[in-house]
C-alpha cells in the first residue's frame, strides 16, 4: 500500500475546528474526492490516517502533517490536486510526498515547532531579555489527576519580538512538549492569536522541516 505524507494548512476559517472534527472533515474529503484511501479492518471502518501532532483549538497553521495510505498508486501532484478540490474552506494541502521504504510514524519524529503569537500590545523588551537570561522558569502543569512543576526554559529554543507580536521556537512532541499557551502565560501575555509556522524533526543536532528530513532519510 503506497503511503504518503501530506503537509496541510489550517486557515482562519478552520481556526476553531477541533482536532477530532478535522479528522472527520478529512475522512469526508476522501469520499468527496473519491480518493482510494485504505480503511481499517473491522466493524467500524475508518480511513488509515495518522497525524504528526494534534493542533490546539484556536490555532492556525501552515505546518501540519498527516500520513495516509492509498489502495492504489497516485502521483503526488494528482493526489494534492484532488484533495484540494475536495477540502472545505480553511483546510488545504500544500505538499505531498510519497514514501519510499518504511518510515517511523510522524508523531514519533516531531521534536519542535515554530509559532507566531499575534498580540494586541507589545511586550517590553526587558521582559523578554529577562526570560531568556534565566536558566529556570518553573510553571505548574495540571493534567487530569496530578499537578506537576516543570522547567520550561530549556524547552524554549528561541523567542523574537516582531512588529505584530512574538515568534518562538519551542520543544514539541512525545518526549518533551511545551504548549505555546504555557509560554505566553509565563510571559504574562493574555490576548493572543496563535499561528504555527512549521513543525520540525531532528537530524543529529539540527532541526529540519519534515520534507527535508524525508529527503535526507531516503538518501
Amino acid at each position, binding site marked *: 500500500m503506497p503511503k504518503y505524507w501530506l503537509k496541510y494548512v489550517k486557515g482562519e476559517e478552520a481556526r476553531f475546528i477541533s482536532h477530532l472534527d478535522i479528522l472527520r472533515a478529512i475522512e469526508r474529503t476522501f469520499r468527496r474526492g473519491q480518493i482510494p484511501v485504505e480503511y481499517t479492518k473491522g466493524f467500524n471502518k475508518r480511513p488509515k490516517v495518522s497525524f504528526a501532532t494534534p493542533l490546539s483549538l484556536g490555532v492556525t497553521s501552515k505546518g501540519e502533517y498527516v500520513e495516509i495510505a492509498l489502495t492504489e498508486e497516485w502521483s503526488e501532484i494528482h493526489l494534492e490536486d484532488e484533495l484540494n478540490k475536495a477540502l472545505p474552506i480553511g483546510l488545504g494541502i500544500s505538499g505531498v510526498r510519497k514514501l519510499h521504504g518504511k518510515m517511523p510514524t510522524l508523531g514519533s519524529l516531531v521534536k519542535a515547532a515554530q509559532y507566531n503569537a499575534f498580540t494586541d500590545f507589545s511586550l517590553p523588551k526587558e521582559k523578554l531579555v529577562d526570560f531568556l537570561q534565566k536558566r529556570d522558569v518553573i510553571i505548574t502543569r495540571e493534567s487530569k489527576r496530578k499537578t506537576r512543576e516543570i522547567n520550561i526554559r530549556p524547552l524554549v529554543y528561541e523567542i523574537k519580538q516582531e512588529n505584530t507580536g512574538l515568534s518562538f521556537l519551542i520543544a514539541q512532541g512525545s518526549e518533551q512538549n511545551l504548549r505555546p499557551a504555557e509560554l505566553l502565560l509565563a510571559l504574562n501575555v493574555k*490576548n493572543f492569536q496563535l499561528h504555527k509556522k512549521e513543525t520540525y524533526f531532528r537530524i543529529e543536532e539540527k532541526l529540519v522541516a519534515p520534507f527535508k528530513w524525508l529527503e535526507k532519510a531516503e538518501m
Partner: protein
Amino acid sequence: MKQLNDINYNQLLHEVEKPSRYTGSELNSVKKNWDEMNLNVLLAFPDIYEVAMSHLGFKILYHVINSQTKYWSQRVNMPWIDYEEKLMENNIPLSSLEEFRPLNEFDVIGFTLQYEMSYTNILRMLELGKVPVKTKDRSNQHPLVIAGGPCAFNPEPLNQFIDAFILGEGEEVTLEVLNVIEQGKKEGISKETLLENLVNVEGVYVPSLYKATDINGQFAGLNPVAEGIPTKINKRIVKDIDKSPFPQELVVPFMEIVHDRIMLEICRGCTRGCRFCQAGMLYRPVREKSMDVLVSQAEKLIRSTGYGEISLSSLSSADYSQINQLVEKLMEKHQQQNVGISLPSLRVDSFSIQLAEMVQQVRKTGLTFAPEAGTQRLRDVINKNVTEQNLINAVTEAFNSGWHKVKLYFMIGLPTETYKDLDGIVDLAFKVIKAYKDVHGKKGKLQVTVSTSSFVPKAHTPFQWLPQMSQKELASRQDYLKDKLRSKQITYNWHDTRISFIEAVFARGGRELSDVLYAAWEKGCKLDGWDNHFNYEKWMESFAEANVNPQKYAYGMWDVDAVLPWDHISSGVDKHYMQKEYKKAYKQLITEDCSFDKCSGCGICKNLGYDTKKVRRGDNA
C-alpha cells in the same frame, strides 16, 4: 461586522464551549456579495446550532433561496448561554454565520417553527440582533419577520411578533413570497402595503390583517379586516415531489450535530392516522419519491458532502413501497465507499428483519419501536394499528439476528388511559425481555429503553378538543411506571410534566398567549426546551401578569362545535373528518391507512386538488 480574525472576538470565542457553533464556513455554505443582492435573507432557527443544522427542511430552504442568483440566504441560530452572555457583555449584536452580519441589516428574517418551547428563543434572537420584537414597532426600515413550519398552523401565540406566516411546504411558496418582497423593496412601498400584497400569495397568513370577533362575549373567530383578504388560509403542498427542488449540496458542519448524516427524504406524509399526531395531519397526502430519483440524489449527496451515512427519512420510512429494493440498491452502489444506510424508525407491523439486517451490515444500532400505548384497547383509541404479537414477533426476529438493544416509545396521559394501560406498558417491556430469554436462554446483554412522553393535544388533530392530563396525575403515572419498570434490563425515561404543560398551553393558545410570551421573554425565559433552563415559576408569573389562565388551554375539554383559535387556518383536512375520528376514538374504531387501503375521506385531496389515486403505495397503486 465582526471578523473571525479580530483578536478580541477571537478571545471571546476561546472562552465559549464549542466555538464552531458560531464560526460558519462549513462545507457547502454559501457566500455571495451582499451589495449585489436584490434581497438578503436570513434563515433563523430558534434552537442551538446542533439542532438547527440537523433539520432537513431548514437546509433545503437555504439552498432553494440560494439557487436564485439575486437572493442570498444566510443562517443564524439561538446561541448557547455562554456565547449569549459574551455578546451582551461586549455589546456585540447577534449575527449571521456566513459573514457575521447583524440581524437588523437583513431584508427578511425567516424563522422555522418546530416546537412551541422555542418561542421565547425567537424573541431573544430578535432582541440580540437589535430588531424590535413586536411587529408594530418595525417599519420597512427593519427586516420583515416571517415564519413557517408545523407550529405556524396555530400562529396566534406569535401574532404580535411575526409579520407573516407561511403555511405548509416551503419549497415553492418561499420564492413566491420573496418575489413579492423584492418587488416591494424596489418600489419602496410601506410595510403595510407589502403585507397586503403578501396575502395574495396562497398559503400566506398576515395576522395584522385579521381581527377577532365575538358573539355575546364568546370568541367567534378571526376575520379579515377588509374585503379581498381570504377568510381561510390554505396550506401549500408540493404536488410533484420528484420534481420539487432538492439540493444537490447540503451544508456539512465541522462539529458533530444531532443528525450527522445525509438525510434523504424518501416520502412525504404519513396516513397511518394516529389520532394524536399533528405531523400525520399536516403533511398529508402521502407522496413517495421514485426510486430512480432517490438513487441519483443519494449519489450526488455523497459526492458533495462526503458523509458516510444516509438516513432514509420520512414519517414512516418502512412504509415506502420499494424500501427493500431501495436499500439494496443503495448498499450495492455505495458499500465500496463505506457508506452506511440507516432508517430513523421502524414500524412494528411493517418491520422486516431482512431490511434491518441489510441496514446493519454497516452499523449496528439499537432498534426503535413506537407502540405508543400499552394495551390493544388504547391503541385502538389512538388508531395505532399494531398488535402486541407484531411487536413480539419483530423483537424475536431481531434478537435472533443478534440485536441486543431495543427502544420502546410510549405516550402517557392519552385520552381514556387508565392504570391498566400503564400495566400494559410494563407487560410489554417484560415480554420483550422474555422474548430475549427465549432466544438466548438468558438475559445476557439485553438493554430495553422505555421512554414515555406526555400527551399534548395539538391543533388540527382529532384530539384537539381534548384536555391534557393534569401535571399531578401525569407525575403519579410516571412514578407508577418508575416503580413497576424496575429491572436491570430496563431504563425508563420520562418528560418533565411542567414543560409538557406549557407546551399544551401554547399548542392550543389564542392571541392572548402572545402577551404571556412577551412577559416571559421580558423575564428572561429562553431555551425552555432544555430542562436545565426551563423556569416554571417565571412562566407562572407571566400568565398572571397577562391575566391568562393557562389551565383553560391545557385542561379545557372543548366542545367539538366551538370556534377554535386556528379555525381560519386550514391544513386541508376537513374539520368534519376530525370530529368523526374523535368520535371513532371513543368507540375504539380503527381507520385504515389510505395509502394502503381505500380513501378514508379526510378531504385533503379534494381540497388541495390532488388525485386520491396517487396516494396509493405499492401493489395498490
